[in-house]
């Protein structure tokens, strides 16, 4: 425990964010975070506990999670909303940027968090789908007995990471105390028609200026030592790189400026590392024709998760995937403050969207369990 505390105190400095008011508490005093056991970095929940498992505990503060959108952008926008909803429940500040929808309408559609009684109902519904003999020892597939199960059903109560009900939207009362900032590109363009941005797509330049202004004004980079209550800024950027941002990498094989997006990500990385913030960006990777750009973007991000949905593809009829709606590809896991890059054991993951719940699971284990159930 002492090692973890020492690691946490050291790990917070890893964002090169010098905490001036370090007196007293050494462990995380920011709501909604916990220190990682592995490298002492502060972790946030992504809003989806099964995704937190995949990412090794959560999203580390000061890092960027890049989500490669699925073909129609449906499931990635769900993950985006989970991330923002988690911020509301934990009391973090939000920064939402989009060129497509107004952030107000995105924030009106956040899923409602589950209270304890409702969580038990949902837990029963989730486990009824699978076989009941989880807890009994397996008779045939006994080698798989001891593999860790992913937290897919909300039967355990966790203070870190919450479950959400997709069929209901979040009530406005929960939203009242939250401080949030928005960046809606058409609005920004009309407010300030000309802004000097050097050698970068002007929309990205404006977004960077806006993020930097919020970080320094609100004191997320430690510039305001008077502020006793530290808080986290959750930044969500939707569909970066799409045509609406004024970038043509999604529609042309030889885009005009292939460096704008990568420069943006580099400067953003610098901003994140020096502040108490975490960022989730969704990017329509399937539309980007120049694969070199996606390789560079992947190298510049900390965590990259790709979603592939089965809608309209031949995998829809594959019996292994009959309960699932798509695959999750973990392309990159961050290496923070340690030599080891802890890659999760489970690399072939799939997601499914039940009526109220979105989960990420390992399809082979369920297949094996279901087959074992059928034999007996």
């Amino acid at each position, binding site marked *: 425990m002492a090692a973890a505390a020492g690691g946490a105190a050291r790990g917070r400095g890893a964002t090169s964010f010098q905490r001036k008011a370090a007196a007293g508490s050494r462990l995380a005093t920011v709501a909604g975070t916990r220190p990682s056991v592995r490298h002492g970095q502060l972790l946030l929940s992504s809003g989806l506990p099964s995704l937190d498992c995949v990412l090794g505990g959560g999203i580390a503060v000061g890092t960027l999670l890049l989500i490669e959108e699925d073909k129609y952008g449906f499931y990635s926008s769900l993950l985006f909303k989970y991330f923002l909803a988690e911020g509301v429940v934990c009391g973090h500040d939000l920064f939402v940027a989009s060129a497509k929808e107004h952030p107000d309408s995105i924030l009106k559609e956040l899923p409602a968090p589950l209270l304890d009684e409702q969580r038990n109902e949902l837990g029963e519904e989730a486990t009824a789908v699978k076989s009941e003999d989880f807890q009994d020892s397996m008779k045939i597939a006994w080698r798989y007995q001891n593999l860790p199960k992913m937290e897919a059903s909300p039967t355990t109560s966790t203070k870190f990471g919450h479950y959400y009900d997709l069929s209901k939207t979040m009530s406005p009362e929960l939203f009242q105390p939250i401080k949030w900032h928005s960046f809606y590109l058409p609005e920004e363009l009309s407010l300030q028609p000309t802004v000097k941005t050097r050698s970068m797509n002007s929309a990205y330049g404006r977004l960077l200026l806006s993020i930097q202004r919020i970080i320094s004004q609100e004191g997320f980079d430690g510039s305001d030592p008077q502020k006793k209550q530290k808080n986290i800024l959750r930044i969500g950027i939707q569909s970066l790189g799409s045509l609406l941002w004024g970038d043509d990498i999604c529609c042309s094989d030889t885009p005009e400026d292939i460096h704008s997006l990568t420069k943006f990500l580099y400067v953003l990385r610098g901003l994140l590392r020096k502040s108490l913030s975490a960022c989730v960006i969704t990017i329509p990777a399937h539309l980007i024709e120049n694969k*070199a750009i996606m390789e560079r973007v992947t190298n510049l991000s900390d965590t990259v998760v790709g979603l592939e949905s089965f809608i309209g593809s031949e995998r829809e009829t594959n019996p292994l995937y009959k309960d699932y709606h798509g695959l999750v590809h973990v392309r990159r896991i961050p290496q923070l403050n340690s030599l080891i*890059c802890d890659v999760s054991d489970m690399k072939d993951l799939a997601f499914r969207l039940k009526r109220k719940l979105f989960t990420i699971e390992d399809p082979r284990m369920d297949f094996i369990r279901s087959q074992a159930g059928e034999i007996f």
Partner: protein
Amino acid sequence: MGEDKPCSRMNPTHREALELPSRNPTADGNAGHNPDWTRSRGEANPAPPAGGAIRPRSAHARRYNTSPLLRSLKTACSLRGGSPAMFAELNELLNASPQRPETGKFTLLRDTRTDGSFLVHHFLSFYLRAGCKVCFVALLQSFSHYNIIAQKLGVSLTAAEERGQLVFLEGLKSCLDLWFGEQEEQSGKPSPLQFISKSTSDLKALFDFVQVSLTPASSDSWKGPVLLVDDLSVLLSLGATPVAVLDFIHYCRVVVCSQLKGNIVVLVHSNEDSEDEENELVVNSLCHHSDLILWVEGLATGFCKDVHGQIKITRRVSLELTGEQDVVQIYQYKIQDKNVTFFARGLSAAVL
């Protein structure tokens, strides 16, 4: 002491397997420094060439040398007593020692399908231990990331910076100052990363920074200068053309390797089916010019908990124009919290 046994030129795996596994506890205590071993080798080989071939090991050295096979089984014991200094096994594989760092060498670190930055940490702590002046161009991570890992390896970057041994260019911070600090740009020195915001895509400002940092002042007593870059592929993402990157490396080689008799270590990323042609161009060109290439690859069959990947060490002996071929050695490795163990292919601790 200088006898050359016939089996010394064998395939390294067979050679290790035939050696008697005698372990001398005193040699084991300080895993990083082994003065008796290096001294004996020094007597046998007075002038090691820059690109070093596998030298015949003297009988005296062989007694202290422990085969990687056994070392991988006993890593827990080898970490007791004294701070773990860099990766001792990698030093053995490269025939390198902090007491006698080589000069005028260009080392290329290359990774495919995995992360090769553990090698950067190794070389950083190696050269700081050796007493060289190091200029570290760290483009991808923050200072504290490197500092925390270097402390695990027994070196303090803040202390090194204070005593003037380390010049650290934190790319992320410098880029932020450049992007958001408009007034400072005119008053202060030009930013080394100014190519990001200006339309000129040459890296002259970065080269000037390197040259100024590594040119020895009269009061310096460090051994040869070292330039470390992590990583070069980021420069391409930020708008530099491949030719500009190659020019930068060329200028650095002239100044650091030839004039100042120092070393350069550069990390690049590459992929086999990469569509990033600019990156492949830079990587291939650098491969032709390097004296030593450490190519780290993830296993082709996928992720494995016990073997994190494979490292291919290529000593470019052919550059010396003596008619010899490049020497290639392949090992597998596993990364632990403070150390990396290397072993022959197929002989990881999990298998034995």
